[in-house]
Structure formats: C-alpha cells, structure tokens
C-alpha cells in the first residue's frame, strides 16, 4: 500500500488542475470537439429541415393553383322541342337526349353571350366557341334537366367549368404565344375570354370540387377532384391502422418478451426484418395473389389495398416496437415480477407504456409510408380511372373500386394535359394535410408517454 502512495503524487509533478475559471488546453480542445459535435447535430437537422422546406415550398407553389378554378356563367335556353319531343316530361324520354344533344344549346348560348359582350372576333361558330368550356358542360346541363325537368322550356343561368386552357390562361400558365400551335384553343379565344372576364361572365374562384370531387377523364382536367380517392385512402388507412398496430405490437411483444430464444424465433426475427426489405411492388404481387386471386376479394377495393399495405407496414412497426421494448430496463420487469405480477401483467402494465413512444414512432412512420405508397396499388388495380363513383355507405367504402391519394397523384402526374400536373401537386398538398393530421394525433399521444428514468 505504501508504495502506491508515493506513486500517487510524485514530487514536482505539475498540478493537474489549474484554475477552474480558465479552461485547460485539453478542456479547450474537448470543448471545441463538443461544440463541433453539437454543430453537426444542428447542421444535420438543418439539412433535413431545409430539404423539407424546399420540398414543401415546391409542392405549395406548384399545387396552390389547383385549388381555384375558372367558371363561366351562361344564360342557356332549354327548348322543349329539342329536349322532350313528346312533351310529357317523362324521364325516360328526356334521357333519350344524350349529353352530345345538349351541345348545340350551349353553342347558341355562347354565341349570344359573345355578341352581348361586344367582343370583336373571327370565331363565329358556336362549336368553336365551345372549346372554351369543359367538355363536361353537356353532362352538367343534362343532369340538371334530369333532376328538375321543369327547367325544360325556360332559359336558365348555368355556371359551367371552362376548359383547362382557359383556366390556365386565368392562372398565367397559358399564354397567347403558347397557344399558337395548340389545337384545342387559339389566341383568338383569349380575346373573347378577356371580354367575358370584363362582363363578369368568367370568374376564377375557390374550387371545392377539387377537394371533394371525383376523378375525371383525360379530356377534362378542370373537372377532376381528389374527394373519392381521399375516401379510398381513408378506408385503406383505417384497415391498416386497425390491423397493423395491434398485430405489430402483439408480434413484437411475443418475440421480445415471451418467445424462447431458439432458432425458430430467430427465424421469425430474421423474417420480419427481411420483410422490411421486400420491395413494395412485391407486396403488390402478394396482395394480388392472396387477396384477389385466392380469397376472391373484389378488385381495386380499399380493403385489399389496406390488407396489402398492412403486410407492408407490419415490419416497420414490429422493428420499432421491438427496439423500444428492448430499451426498457430489466429492473422494471423484475420489480413487477417481484410483487407477483404475471409476465403478461408486467408487460402490459409497465413495459408497454414505457415503450409507447417508440411504438408510436413506428406507427407514425409506418402509416406515413403506407399513406404515400403507390407501387403495390399498381398491381391490385387501384390506379387508373377509378375514383369516379362515391361509395354509398361504409361497407361499399371498403369494397367498391376506388383509388387512393398517392395513386391518384401518380396517375395525374402521368397525364398529358399540363393542367393535370398542377392538380397532381395540389393533390400532394391534400395528402400532406391528411398526413400531418394523422401524425399530429400520434405525436400528441407520444408526448404524453415520453419520460426519462
């Protein structure tokens, strides 16, 4: 013992600690390191957030115009001799006039409106004027008449969607120069548009239809909306949430807390991490084979999408849940077992609540990923021209053919008319709002469970 004493403080050795008020060289170096490290952290978050900002700004700049739409108000005469030749106001008879049959009425109204507005123009044929309107105008008229046959024989004011080119002109996307070689509209039309804007017949306003509407065919971008696809995503996410969270958590609990350590559980464990690496398109192949071809669930249905995405989301939830179960200190389990709690009780009462933040994180990320996933939907037929009929009830919400938001966005982004491109970005805004709302709930829950011990 005595020899250690001498070696402890050899005489003449410089004192290790100087004044606390000034930092030693080593401390300075270490603190510089510390500061750098901290800076890396700030930088890392900044990079992430800058990237996010860049993305969001791009999305918003591109997408905001989709939320407004240009309309034209026209006084349209609905002559009885054309719409109901027998004059009995019998619906079956009125139905005989197809949407194309309404076009001449619109043409006539357009000619009148242009003349009234006093615009000088070379375009005199009503059919050419009609290029300014959406090709869905005829259908809108027909539906109005079928709903209210009394309109026949009167002149009524209709607010009709203008075509995507006119809308683009109002939004600054389309210019006279760019129309020079366009075959849908000519610069001449724009003079008329200007004139009608002056008279107030053409107006641009907020478009609920974009948020609540159905998909439209490629020839009518102005009519397309996100509403039905939104319902599709909603029902799909409902399935994913209701299945993947409990199954994922249950599987993790079993693996982490109950499963004996053997090759079989290793097999399950490896399996689950491997499933995370399976490309989402392969889950599409699986969904097609199992849910549609084997189980005979309907094609393109949100329930199939939900089931497929559930399988895809499970690994994410399981991996994060297991990681956070693992991080609960063993003494907590001991404490519970020591007072005679069963294993199940110790897990459910103590370990699980403590692991909750990680579980919710996994859920947030897993659901977010599922919400934004397109590839598997390609294979189970949820992409294309699908989101056109509103589901009429809860059951049909799950079972009727529908699309989903990312698939709808994907679809729009591919379409030829640039107006769809704008709607694709607009759709992304809606998707993000959906996502943020969904996350907000989970984030709030997570904050309630966070603690350090």
């Amino acid at each position, binding site marked *: 013992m005595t020899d250690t004493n001498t070696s402890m403080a050899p005489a003449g050795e410089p004192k290790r600690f100087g004044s606390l008020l000034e930092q030693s060289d080593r401390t300075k170096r270490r603190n510089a390191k510390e500061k750098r490290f901290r800076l890396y952290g700030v930088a890392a978050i900044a990079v992430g957030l800058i990237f996010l900002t860049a993305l969001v700004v791009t999305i918003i700049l591109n997408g905001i115009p989709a939320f407004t739409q240009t309309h034209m108000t026209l006084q349209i005469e609905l002559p009885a001799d054309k719409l109901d030749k027998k004059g009995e106001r019998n619906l079956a008879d009125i139905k005989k006039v197809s949407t194309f049959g309404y076009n001449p009425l619109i043409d006539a109204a357009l000619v009148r409106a242009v003349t009234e507005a006093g615009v000088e123009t070379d375009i005199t044929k009503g059919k050419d004027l009609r290029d300014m309107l959406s090709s869905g105008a005829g259908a809108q008229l027909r539906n109005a008449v079928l709903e209210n046959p009394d309109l026949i024989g009167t002149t009524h004011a209709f607010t009709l969607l203008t075509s995507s080119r006119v809308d683009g002109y109002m939004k600054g996307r389309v210019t006279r120069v760019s129309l020079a070689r366009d075959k849908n509209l000519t610069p001449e039309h724009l003079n008329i548009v200007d004139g009608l804007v002056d008279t107030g017949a053409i107006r641009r306003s907020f478009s609920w239809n974009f948020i609540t509407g159905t998909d439209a065919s490629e020839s009518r971008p102005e009519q397309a909306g996100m509403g039905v696809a939104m319902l599709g995503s909603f029902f799909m996410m409902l399935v994913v949430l209701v299945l993947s969270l409990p199954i994922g958590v249950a599987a993790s609990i079993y693996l982490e807390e109950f499963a004996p350590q053997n090759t079989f559980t290793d097999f399950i464990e490896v399996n689950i991490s491997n499933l995370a690496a399976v490309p989402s398109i392969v889950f599409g192949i699986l969904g097609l084979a199992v849910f549609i071809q084997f189980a005979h669930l309907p094609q393109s249905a949100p329930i199939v999408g939900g089931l497929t995405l559930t399988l895809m989301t499970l690994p994410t939830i399981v991996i994060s849940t297991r990681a956070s179960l693992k991080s609960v200190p*063993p003494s907590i389990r001991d404490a519970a077992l*020591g*007072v*005679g709690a069963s294993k199940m009780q110790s897990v459910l009462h103590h370990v699980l609540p403590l692991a909750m933040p990680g579980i919710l994180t996994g859920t947030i990320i897993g659901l977010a990923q599922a919400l934004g996933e397109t590839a598997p939907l390609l294979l189970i037929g949820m992409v294309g021209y699908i989101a056109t009929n509103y589901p009429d009830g809860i059951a049909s919400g799950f079972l009727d053919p529908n699309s989903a938001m990312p698939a709808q966005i994907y679809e729009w982004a591919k379409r030829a008319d640039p107006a769809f491109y704008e709607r694709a970005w607009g759709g992304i805004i809606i998707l993000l709002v959906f996502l943020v709302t969904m996350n907000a709930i989970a984030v709030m829950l997570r904050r309630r469970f966070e603690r350090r011990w």
Partner: protein
Amino acid sequence: MKDNIISEMDVTTDKIKISARDVQVYYGDNHAIKDVSVEIQDKTVTAFIGPSGCGKSTFLRCINRMNDTIDICRVEGDILIDGEDIYDSNVDPVQLRAKVGMVFQKPNPFPKSIYDNVAYGPRIHGLARNKSELDDIVERALKRAAIWNEVKDRLHAPGTGLSGGQQQRLCIARAIATEPEVLLMDEPCSALDPIATAQVEELIDELRQDYSVVIVTHSMQQAARVSQKTAFFHLGNLVEYGETDKIFTSPEDPRTESYITGRIG
C-alpha cells in the same frame, strides 16, 4: 423512540417453510452457487451473510424463481416451499411470487407515482374491495416501511424522484403491501439511516409473527439483532448454517470465524 435492541419474541416454530436440496446455479460457465442445501423455518427470520459476490443474492432469487428472468442463469436441484417443489413444471411462478415477495438489492421503483407503486401489488392480486380499502393498504404499507411521514404529502409524485433511502423503503412498502407468506429482502437497510433501519428491523420482527423472512445483510450486528438463524456463504458454498447465536459466538468453520471476527460494520 423505541428501544434499540429489539426484544426477541419467542415465536419461532420448527415447521420447515423452505427446503433447498443440492442447489446449483450457473451464470453461463460461472458456477455461482455450489451444492447448497438448507432448510428455512416458518415464522423465523433467517439472515444470509457472506462477502460480496459470494452468491447471497443469487440464492435468494432462486427462492422465488426470479432467476428465470436471466437468460444465462441455470438452476439445478430442488427447492421446496411448504413441501412443494417450486421448480415443478406445474408451479405457476406468478402464484409463487405472490406468496414469496422480494425486495431487491438496488431499489427499483416503477416510474409511476408513489401511490401507484405501492398499490400495484394489491391491485393485481385483488386485495382491496374498493378505493378506500386500497388507500388503507397503501397507507399501512408505507407506515410499516417507515416512510409514510416523508411521502404522505406527495403520494402522487413519481417514485423515482425520491432519495436513495426513500426509494429503498418504498420498495419495502411495495413488497409488504401484497402480504406475502415469505419475504425475501436483499440488503433492505443498506441505504437507510439508523432510525429508519431500526424501524425496518422492527417491521421484520413483526412480520416474523406470521411469516417467514429471509434477509441478506452485510451488517453482522443487524444479522445478530433480527435473525434467529444465520447462513454464511462463501464463494458460492453454504459454509455454515445454524442458530444465529451460535454462528456468532462459536462458529464451527474457520472461514466463518475469520469472517465474523473481521467485523467492523
């Protein structure tokens, strides 16, 4: 304040409560308990003493099968409580642990409120018919663990925000709230001041009236004061086991003797 030297009450019976035969414990390759056989009587306080690392905690944890939770730990041999082999496959470790309570060496309160820490056991065992009964149980347990005065105003503050000694007493309160028949206490007074220690010792003595208590301690004095039987462990072996008086006055084994006489604690 009560008398410091607690009067020995004559409540010991000869009934065997716990009987261990040829117990071996391994942590992986490390043979931590070697061939230990011991019979622990009912309504008795038994003290385990021995140098640090000799296997006291390990053996204690065998008695309520807490070692099941350590992956690498392997237990061999038989341990019988009330004549029933607790390592029998029919035995439900949960029921066992409800009957054999435990206070751990390192205080481990749940990250919950003080009240919930104590109420947890009674809740899962259904010991209270209603809220006020539960309140009573909690209060009594905290009082018996000599911590009631310190926490009565902050029952709903987190148990992890207590001082070291308070946490230790909280864990004692938590263990006795479920009223086990056997109570295993691993150094229950290590972080306690003399007065609190005395109170806990008083509690132990009181518990002895009905239950069987096994206590690990490093303080010879404490062993002498509270226990009727003492077991001395050394390097995983049970070196000597017998009446406390006898162990401390005339130990048979030289190892016991040298450990006892080296006393300073």
